[in-house]
């Protein structure tokens, strides 16, 4: 809520009641070839993802521009190079950027030194597109390994959107009293979890059916209304090959229109939300799960 007790900062800037962050995971064919390089021969499967760069991404840019929405695009380094033309337009439209490693690596299985090399390379690929300072990071998969927060800050990333489990940003310990601002997401607001489908390799793992578009949008709108009521932060995850199609793009349009309708939402990039949160709120309330975990875990996690 914008209203706050006297002397405490408002939760969101400029009287906004709640925050909405639109993110795009532009992983392209690395969804398939990242974990399994030998899948580079699967032309039909890979073409699903090439579609994203060819048709989905421009369609997103048009819809975002029509509504004045600045999204945040998470892109693996290899895709920045392969789809340079797409990414230059993303930057020209004023969208924010974040990394997904070089090739959607699992950071929890990489040796620490290799993690650092991958993060540096991913950061360097984004620097080719835009000035550094506001780049985010989204873990491509797997767990958050010990020391990752410190490495992100050392390399130049300032915030992350990799966790589920809160409705507001929070702080991840990053050594020496530092912290990475986390802008958490929810699986239900991920279009890939809702709609993506491939025969082989199977997506989703159990080949469940493609659900009703209207019903999925309705669930998203429930979450939007819950976020609005409580003044929270909603993170939407889109994929160009999933909702950037002629049949599904209307879901994106209608969700954004619902978000913009009452003028109470702060629709911001991940970097803007993270930077506001760090400046206005500084640290988590005592009892945050991250603090509890630090207190009770027998393992070294940070």
């Amino acid at each position, binding site marked *: 809520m914008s209203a706050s007790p006297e002397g405490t900062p408002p939760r969101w800037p400029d009287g906004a009641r709640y925050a909405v962050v639109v993110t795009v995971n532009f992983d392209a064919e690395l969804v398939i070839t990242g974990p399994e390089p030998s899948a580079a021969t699967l032309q039909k499967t890979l073409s699903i993802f090439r579609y994203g760069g060819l048709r989905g991404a421009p369609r997103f840019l048009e819809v975002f521009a029509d509504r004045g929405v600045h999204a945040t695009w998470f892109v693996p380094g290899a895709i920045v190079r392969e789809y340079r033309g797409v990414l230059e337009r993303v930057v020209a439209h004023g969208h924010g950027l974040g990394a997904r490693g070089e090739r959607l690596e699992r950071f929890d299985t990489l040796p620490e030194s290799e993690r650092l090399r991958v993060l540096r390379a991913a950061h360097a690929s984004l620097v080719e597109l835009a000035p550094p300072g506001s780049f985010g990071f989204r*873990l491509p*998969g*797997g*767990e*958050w390994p010990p020391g990752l927060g410190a490495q992100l800050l050392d390399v130049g990333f300032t915030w992350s959107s*990799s*966790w*589920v*489990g*809160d*409705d507001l940003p929070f702080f991840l310990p990053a050594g020496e009293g530092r912290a990475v601002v986390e802008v958490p997401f*929810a*699986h*239900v607001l991920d279009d890939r*979890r*809702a709609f993506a489908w491939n025969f082989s390799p199977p997506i*989703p*793992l*159990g*080949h*469940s*059916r493609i*659900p*009703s578009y209207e*019903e*999925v949008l*309705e*669930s*998203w709108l*429930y*979450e*939007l*209304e*819950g*976020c609005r*009521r*409580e003044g*929270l932060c*909603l993170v939407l995850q889109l994929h160009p090959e999933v909702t950037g199609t002629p049949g599904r793009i209307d879901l994106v349009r209608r969700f954004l229109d619902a978000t913009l309708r009452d003028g109470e939402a702060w629709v911001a990039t991940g970097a803007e939300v993270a930077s506001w949160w760090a400046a206005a709120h500084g640290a988590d309330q005592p*009892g*945050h*799960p*991250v603090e*509890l*975990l630090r207190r*009770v*875990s*027998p*393992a070294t*996690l940070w």
Partner: protein
Amino acid sequence: MSAGAGGVWPHGQRSCVSLAFDVDGPTGSAMVDGSIWHMPRYFVQGAYGPYRAVPRILDLLERTGVKATFYVPAWVVEHWPDLCRAVVAAGHEVAHHGYKHERYVDLSVEAQEAVLNRSQEIFADVLGAPAVGYRTPTGDWHEETPRLLAERGFLYSSSLRDDDRPYRHVIGGVTSSLVEIPAPVELDDYAYFAFTEEPAFPKGHDRVAPYRAALSNWCAEFDGSHQVGGCLTTTFHPKVSATPGRALVLEAFVEHMRAARDCWFATGSEIARWVLGHPATFDRPPPPWENLTPA
């Protein structure tokens, strides 16, 4: 209290609902085997329940005036003591759900006793009294579990799925004073909404059910139970079904049930005491074969 017109529920109420939440938090098999200490994202996803979702549910219950039952692993009681005391102070019931959400069927009798005794001590220390209700965590209980519960003075369990109304457990061939409040899986939110990336849940990463479809099913389950004068209980996990959006679904479900007006909302122990006070009413009737006429 006297039984109502239907002869089953107090004050002439037609059916009974025990709105119930399993506050597992980060407990479960990953905590039992210790792997969770290397899974910080998974831990925080679980902790969302007590941290964000239970307060949201307490607000909802206060707005709607419903008293609920919270099945809480004692590890969660230990680590969120103020929250659990607030649940009790608001008039709700906190009941046993393992220490770290152990699967009872996997435990020896001695190990089950250790879990029960340790958890009861924590309940007594933090909440002022041991639990009188039990819901078996994560699947099945052990064939000896009902006896262990009865020996410890538990009034009820809400673990099985085998009737529309509560009944008294038969232990060692003798009808005991341990009441069962059956909990249908159709009102378990895991079957609709739970989703974790790794370990994958559902195993095939099946889609999350559309919210309206889940709400519609839950309302149909209530309508059916109300029709037959049954007792409905839920297995809602705050971390799963009290996200900002799903809390609105829960609210709509509670409002649907309250609109029936002649439904008795009760905690597990209120139901168990009612059943024990009217044992003949709750003797399990045989299937009504004699009422069925072949075409």
